[in-house]
């Protein structure tokens, strides 16, 4: 059985300016202990996918249709109380901006302990002791002291470590990491990713790593789903994706990053145009206005189909 099985998820935001179709008919599967990279540009629906899994889509957003099976149970059919026993305990989330995700008026120990007391039958003191151990396990020096500090007393990298400590407090089986290092400097990013990777492997957790950075995906993910305008346009294992990208959007993304291995100065390849507005999506294939290989067929939106074993692509030309 898959740990996570999303079937036909569609999430819309009903705004005054019109319906924002953030996610359209998204299906994903994830097995225990695997890392899935969810890659795409801003507004492609990566974060909304993560929030939908936790049933935390903010107003005026709504999950319009679809099913999200987690350990065989449809999360969308659960009551609010039942969902609360899963959130933070079995599925937890690490946010992009640790400063806004942590509460500035409580100590970090307090915030980590809250996760434990909310989900487990432990006393406050036990939870505090556990918080110290958790801080130690995420590599925070002198955790006995740090546990009594407030978020503003910690650096960005430290705060993200605290976020990770909170996320793993109840040993969840799935972690949703939403751009966990985007707000951090490269040298700090390396630490945080190393830490997440170690913890993930040791505890055997599955992880969805949401990012716009193909480099992160290449280093950290087993499988990748590339998103564009609320849809998965390509999905396969990481090696296959980088060796044999099929969707023109994936190819364009890969060609547009300057590579360190390239000798001399070559001109960067670009994808013409910009990401479409989600209120006003193009007809047919949503990528077609920017696509170099579009044909007459592209006025009809292609389905995501398996073109090779385990390699799914949403493009007429890839078949």
């Amino acid at each position, binding site marked *: 059985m898959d740990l996570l099985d999303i079937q036909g998820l569609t999430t819309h935001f009903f705004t005054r300016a019109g319906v924002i179709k953030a996610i359209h008919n998204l299906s994903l599967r994830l097995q225990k202990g695997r890392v899935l990279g969810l890659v795409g540009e801003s507004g492609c629906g990566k974060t909304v996918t993560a929030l939908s899994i936790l049933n935390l889509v903010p107003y005026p957003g709504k999950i319009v249709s679809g099913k999200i099976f987690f350990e065989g149970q449809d999360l969308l059919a659960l009551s609010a109380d039942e969902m609360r026993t899963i959130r933070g305990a079995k599925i937890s989330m690490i946010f992009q901006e640790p400063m806004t995700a942590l509460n500035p008026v409580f100590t970090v120990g307090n915030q980590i302990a809250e996760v434990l007391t909310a989900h487990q039958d432990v006393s406050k003191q036990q939870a505090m002791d556990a918080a110290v151990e958790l801080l130690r396990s995420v590599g925070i020096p002198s955790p006995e002291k740090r546990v009594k500090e407030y978020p503003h007393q910690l650096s960005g990298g430290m705060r993200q470590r605290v976020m990770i400590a909170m996320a793993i407090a109840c040993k969840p089986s799935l972690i949703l990491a939403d751009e966990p290092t985007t707000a951090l400097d*490269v040298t700090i990013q390396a630490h945080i*990713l190393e830490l997440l990777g170690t913890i993930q492997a040791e505890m055997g957790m599955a992880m969805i790593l949401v990012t716009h950075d193909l*480099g992160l995906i290449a280093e950290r993910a087993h499988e990748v789903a590339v998103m564009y305008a609320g849809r998965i346009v390509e999905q396969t294992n990481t090696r296959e994706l980088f060796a044999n990208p099929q969707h023109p959007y994936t190819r364009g993304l890969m060609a547009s990053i300057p590579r360190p291995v390239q000798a001399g100065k070559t001109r960067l390849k670009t994808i013409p145009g910009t990401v479409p507005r989600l209120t006003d999506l193009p007809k047919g294939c949503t990528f077609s206005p920017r696509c170099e290989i579009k044909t007459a067929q592209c006025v009809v939106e292609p389905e995501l189909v398996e073109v090779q074993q385990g390699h799914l692509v949403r493009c007429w030309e890839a078949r």
Partner: protein
Amino acid sequence: MTRELLAINDLYKTFPIKSGLGKTLRATAVDGVTLSVARGEALGLVGESGCGKSTLGRLALRLLQPTSGSVSFEGRDLASLNKQALRELRKKMQIIFQDPFASLNPRMRILEIITEPLVIHGLAKDNDLEERGAGLLEKVGLPADALRCYPHEFSGGQRQRIGIARALASGPSFIVADEPVSALDVSVQAQIINLLEDLRAELNLSFLFIAHDLNIVRHFSDRVAVMYLGKIVEIAPAEEIYKNSSHPYTEALLADIPIADPTVKKKHILLKGDIPSPTQVPLGCRFHTRCIYRFEPCDKIVPKTTDLGNSHFVDCHLRG
């Protein structure tokens, strides 16, 4: 005339920080920087947040007054110029900002935004503005009918093009590009980088190109300077710095960029701890608190700049 367009000599900038207890700390943002940018050259400046790279960019244009040291442009010391002379010189030095959402006035039309430098410097008559504006937009790849629009009608990449058009308006020879693509989506970044490259070649522009993404800096620049806590710790031609990085900090920066190729198994260099506060710069080598090669003199003696040949300079006891 000298080949040197911009020369920065032993530049310092400190900012007062009120600690809240009546005490004032001093944060050293730029700590003794000497640099030069040649005519037509693109000098890349990399470093992590808070290292002082943006402050240095603003000092270079005298948008900030240095605490000490000098900046000269075309051989003239900016500090010695009166207001009028400085304004005259500003035509030739412009800036492109990081955030294309914050750097364009939302109440001004694109025409007003990009021709404002022309009006300020008296470079065009009122009835020429439209034509000049359209010409500038064409240079950056936008249609002339955009002149009538407001900034909110454009995407991030288009706004950055508008910011570039504004920077070009007064006919500059030197541009400080302060993280010009870091707020943009990956697929749009390449468009802007290519545009800057074209303009650079066409107009023979010199650049101080500030970024934290080493791959982009390398792609764009002739030389690269690496900044750490207010000081340039290494500077060399772009290819050289990537092939023979000599400062442990540069080495770590390079090793820590994730590579978009799963077949490459890369060893990251995990630096210890966090970047120290600029109010308490470590004694000796400022990098010693995080350095993996730290030895005897590092926490006592400030390393001197060593010439490694090939226009490659480094501040490190290991090489000195």
